[in-house]
């Protein structure tokens, strides 16, 4: 065996020392470099994972917020649409009411105007009748004044006849 090592140019002692050196170096490196490095890597990995997780959560939240925003916007749009629709309906009802009231008012005004016109017509008619009566009366009086004695005589004769009839009735009674 040692012959074979010798023929191959391997010095087993050197190999052993190098092996020991290697083990020592490995132990030192493991203790002072690999472990802290692994720890650092592990922490970094954890941080990255945490970051990824947080990022994913943030993304999910953003998505949820977006969804919520969409929903809220939809609801707001719906509410706004309903408000506008209600407003339109109310405005239409108000306008209809105003138009109806306006129409009624116009009818009332027309009716009142008609009544005023009728009343004025009636007043004018009455005034005309009154004037005509006054004219007829004045004409009759003027005619009578042309020969008042004749009219007086006729009327007094009528009165006398009436009184005679009355006296006869009383005397019979």
């Amino acid at each position, binding site marked *: 065996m040692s012959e074979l090592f010798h023929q191959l140019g391997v010095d087993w002692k050197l190999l052993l020392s190098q092996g020991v050196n290697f083990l020592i170096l490995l132990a030192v490196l493991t203790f002072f470099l690999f472990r802290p490095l692994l720890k650092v890597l592990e922490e970094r990995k954890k941080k990255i994972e945490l970051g990824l997780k947080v990022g994913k959560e943030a993304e999910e939240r953003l998505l949820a917020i977006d969804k919520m925003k969409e929903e809220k916007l939809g609801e707001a749009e719906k509410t706004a649409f309903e408000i506008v629709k209600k407003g339109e309906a109310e405005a239409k009802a108000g306008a209809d009411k105003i138009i109806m009231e306006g129409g009624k008012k116009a009818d009332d005004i027309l009716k009142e105007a008609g009544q005023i016109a009728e009343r004025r017509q009636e007043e004018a008619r009455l005034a005309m009748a009154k004037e005509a*009566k006054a004219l*007829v*009366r004045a004409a*009759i*009086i003027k005619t*009578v004044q042309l020969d*008042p*004695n004749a*009219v*007086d*005589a006729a*009327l*007094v*004769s*009528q*009165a*006398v006849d*009436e*009184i*005679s009839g*009355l*006296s006869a009735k009383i005397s019979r009674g």
Partner: protein
Amino acid sequence: MKYPAESYAKAFSEALEEHPSKKDHIIKSFLGAVYRNGDWPAIEKILNLITQKITHGAGGRVVSAEFARPLSDKLILEFKKEFSVKDHVEISLRPELVAGVRVLIDGEKELDMTLAKKINKLLQ
């Protein structure tokens, strides 16, 4: 009024019936009493009632005739002959009657033969 017109008329008539010889004194005292009582504004009503009472007492009627204008004597005679001497006929003028006569007998029976009434009736 302190006393009603009817009471004055009754008192005057009774006083005149009881003492017809003191007619002037009664009239004077009566008018003085009406004046003192403050009832002078109603003297016309009182006198009308007295006239009515005396006329009725004598069996006559109180006739009030209103003419539009003074009538001729002929017409007045024609009108008056319808009443007896017991009747008391008062004649007054009211131009607003236009023509004719309005007769009121005993303040109750009215006979309106005036042109004013006929015109009013015609124009009503």
